Each structure stands twice: as structure tokens, then as C-alpha cells.
């Protein structure tokens, strides 16, 4: 009885081993094909071509902003000049104030709407990439026979990515857009003071970003604790999000630098310079557009302050702080993207 059972089990084990070797072979052959394709693409990758496409994306945005800049300067000058004549405007002065507040709002809207579109597209692209990496990662783990790891990894990563995607797409970006509208209303109707509500929504957005990325990195650390492919990338991620991102998003980059460099190192060791170029190509254009818009707001705010146009300068300051939130969101998403890419690469290599 025992002998027959042992024979059965050994037979089953041999079949399973053969099946696994076949799966691994087929997976390996697919991987080889994929590697060949990747090498082919990487050989075609020209740094000049990448730089050119990045420059094109910048220049198309700057081209649209260029005309608005002169109008904005003109509006600030007009409001400053006519603020001297405020007493001569009599009771019509209030309406003139509203009109002179509405024109810079139009200019600001014309600048920030493409910026919002670019950042939203970039974040959704990053999230789509992270979501797409889940089945690939799970397949790799299944192919190597780590079925438990594969199931936990797939579920936890998908939860993490979905949380980030849901929170950024349906909560934080609409809140920042709403804050922009509140700033606009505040600039047009100067008697209404909406700055309190505006700052409340801004701090809410910052807290939500901090919370979502803490959950994100927390889930990743749970995944790495459950899965045997242990790495300390996610734990480092928790450190920077929990300690830095929640109060002020600004200093998180310096804190997470080691994590990002470690992830970039993994990516570079496996994919070569092509992987780094891909990361740069994904993250640099939206950050650049955001930086240009911020620069625009800062210049206009400084100019408004120079000519003592208080209402207009507060509009530019308010939009600038909203862009800070958007920047924090973009940088956090970018860092999460690099960490996910690093984890993905490390697990792929360790298999």
C-alpha cells in the first residue's frame, strides 16, 4: 500500500517537474524573444531622438503659453495703472475691479488647463503601466512555481495600484481643480473671502496624497513580507511617505533618493540604459510642463507685487500653491512608478 502510494507520488512529482520545465522553457523562450525585441528597440533608441521628442513636447506647450504671458503682463499693468485712478471711477469702480480680476483669471485658466491635462495623462499612464505590470509579474512567479507568492503579489500590487489610481484620478485632481476655481472666484469677487475654504481644500488634498502613498507603500511592504522576494525598497518607501510626504511634500525627494537610486540601479542592471531612458521619457515632460507653469505664476506674482496689484498677485500665489500640490502628486506617482519598476525588475532577476 505504502509502496504503491510512493510510486504514485514520485510519478506525479516527475510529471509535475516535466510540466514545470516545459512551462519554464516556453516562458524562457518567450522571454528570449522579448529580450531580443527589447534589444532591437534599445539599439534603435537614440538619445538625440528622445531629447528631441522631449523638447518638442516642451516647445508645443511653451508656444501655447507664450501669447498668454504678454496678455497677462498687460493686464497686470492695466490694473496697476488704473488702481491709481480708483477714486475717479466712482461707483463703477467695483465693476471695473471685477473685470480687471476676470481677465487675469482667463489667462491663468488658459495656462493651467493644458498643464492639468498633461499631468493627468501622465499619472494615468503611470498607473496603467503599473496595472499592466501585475499580470506580467504574476506570470513570471507562476512560471517559476511560486504560486503562493504569485497570488499574494498580484492581489496586493493590484490593490495598491488601484488605490493610488482611484485617489489621484477621482479625488486629488478634482480637488485641485476645484481650488483653482475658488481662487478664480476670489479674484473676480474681491469682497468674498474664500481663501479659508481654499486653504482647507488644499490641505485636504495634501493629506490625501500622503495617506494614499502611505497605504500604497504599506501594501507593497506587506506584499514583500508575504512574498519570499523580500526587499527593503517598499519599507524605505514607507519611511519617506509617512515621515515626509504627509506634512510637506517638498522634502520627500531627498528622503526617498536612496530608494529611487536603488530601484534605478536594478532597472539599469537588467534593462541597460534603455530602461533609464524610458523612465526619464515618462516622467520628465510632465514635470517640465509643471515647472514652466510654476515659473510663469511666480514671475506674474512677482510682477504684480512690484506694481502693487494685490488681488492679482494673490491669484497667482494661490495657483502656484495648487501647482505645488499637483507637483507633489506627480513626484509621488513617479517615485511609486520607479519603486514598482524596481520591485518588478528585482523579482524578475531573482527568478
Amino acid at each position: 500500500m505504502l509502496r504503491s502510494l510512493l510510486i504514485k507520488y514520485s510519478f506525479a512529482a516527475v510529471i509535475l517537474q516535466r510540466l514545470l520545465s516545459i512551462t519554464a522553457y516556453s516562458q524562457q523562450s518567450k522571454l528570449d524573444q522579448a529580450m531580443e525585441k527589447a534589444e532591437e528597440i534599445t539599439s534603435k533608441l537614440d538619445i538625440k531622438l528622445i531629447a528631441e521628442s522631449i523638447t518638442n513636447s516642451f516647445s508645443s506647450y511653451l508656444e501655447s503659453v507664450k501669447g498668454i504671458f504678454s496678455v497677462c503682463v498687460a493686464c497686470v499693468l492695466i490694473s496697476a495703472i488704473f488702481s491709481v485712478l480708483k477714486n475717479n471711477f466712482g461707483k463703477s469702480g467695483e465693476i471695473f475691479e471685477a473685470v480687471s480680476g476676470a481677465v487675469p483669471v482667463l489667462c491663468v485658466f488658459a495656462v493651467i488647463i493644458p498643464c492639468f491635462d498633461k499631468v493627468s495623462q501622465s499619472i494615468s499612464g503611470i498607473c496603467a503601466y503599473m496595472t499592466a505590470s501585475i499580470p506580467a509579474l504574476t506570470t513570471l512567479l507562476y512560471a517559476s512555481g511560486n504560486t503562493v507568492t504569485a497570488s499574494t503579489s498580484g492581489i496586493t500590487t493590484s490593490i495598491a495600484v488601484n488605490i493610488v489610481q482611484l485617489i489621484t484620478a477621482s479625488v486629488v485632481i478634482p480637488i485641485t481643480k476645484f481650488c483653482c476655481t475658488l481662487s478664480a472666484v476670489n479674484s473676480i469677487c474681491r469682497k468674498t473671502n474664500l481663501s479659508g475654504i481654499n486653504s482647507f481644500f488644499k490641505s485636504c488634498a495634501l493629506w490625501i496624497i500622503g495617506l494614499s502613498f502611505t497605504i500604497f507603500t504599506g501594501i507593497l511592504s506587506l506584499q514583500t513580507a508575504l512574498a519570499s522576494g523580500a526587499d527593503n525598497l517598499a519599507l524605505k518607501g514607507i519611511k519617506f511617505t509617512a515621515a515626509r510626504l504627509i506634512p510637506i511634500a517638498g522634502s520627500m525627494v531627498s528622503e526617498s533618493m536612496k530608494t529611487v537610486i536603488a530601484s534605478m540601479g536594478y532597472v539599469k542592471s537588467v534593462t541597460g540604459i534603455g530602461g533609464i531612458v524610458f523612465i526619464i521619457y515618462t516622467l520628465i515632460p510632465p514635470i517640465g510642463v509643471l515647472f514652466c507653469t510654476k515659473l510663469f505664476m511666480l514671475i506674474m506674482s512677482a510682477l504684480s507685487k512690484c506694481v502693487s496689484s494685490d488681488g492679482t498677485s494673490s491669484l497667482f500665489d494661490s495657483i502656484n500653491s495648487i501647482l505645488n500640490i499637483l507637483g507633489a502628486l506627480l513626484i509621488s506617482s513617479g517615485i511609486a512608478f520607479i519603486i514598482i519598476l524596481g520591485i518588478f525588475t528585482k523579482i524578475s532577476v531573482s527568478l
Partner: protein
Amino acid sequence: MDILKLIPISLLACFAAMLTKKFNSECGQLISVISGVSVCVFSVAILSPVTQYVTFLTESNDYSPLTSVLIKSAGICLLCTSACEICKDLGESSLSSKLELAGKCTLITMSLPVIKTVFDYAQKLIN
């Protein structure tokens, strides 16, 4: 017109109005109204280099109508206020308030495209 010419002319008109009022009050008021309107027109004319510069800044631009709306509304404000003050000087305070109302209505109508575009942008942003 130079301000150095405008000041003596307005002072002369003031004295002339004062002297004429003793003999013929209507004629004196007419002199003060004419001089007031002239000073107002010349004051607006002094600002023409500013408007020209602003127009130069925004010319050949899709957003140039915005600055023209701003300049026009400032001009309307100045002219309406001056006209209202003249009416008040002539003792026609009710006409003055009606003129103010007309000025406000004109401003609102003029700024309507700007406000409409702001709403459109806000809608686009929130949607």
C-alpha cells in the same frame, strides 16, 4: 496736451465761470461744464501712450480683445464719473444716478464675453 498748459487753462475757465455767474448764471454754468468736459477729454488723451503700449504688447494675439475690454471699461468708468459729477454740479442728482446706472449696465454688458469665457473655462476645468 501738456499738463502745464492744462492747469492755467482750467484756472482761467474757473475764474471766467465765477465772473460770468454774477451776471448770467446759466452762462457761467455752461462755461464750467465745457471746461470740465475738455479737461476730462484731455486727461483721457494723456493716457493714450499707455493704451498704445498695452495694445502693442498684445497685438497679433488671440487674447488681445481681453486687454481692449479692460481699457474700454476703464475709459467708460472715467467718462461716466466725470459726466455724473457735472450733472451733480448742475444740481441734477437724479440724472447723475441714472447716468451711473447706465455706466454700470454698459460695463456689465461689455464684460459679459469675458465672464462667459471664464465660466466656460471653469466648466472645462471642473468637467
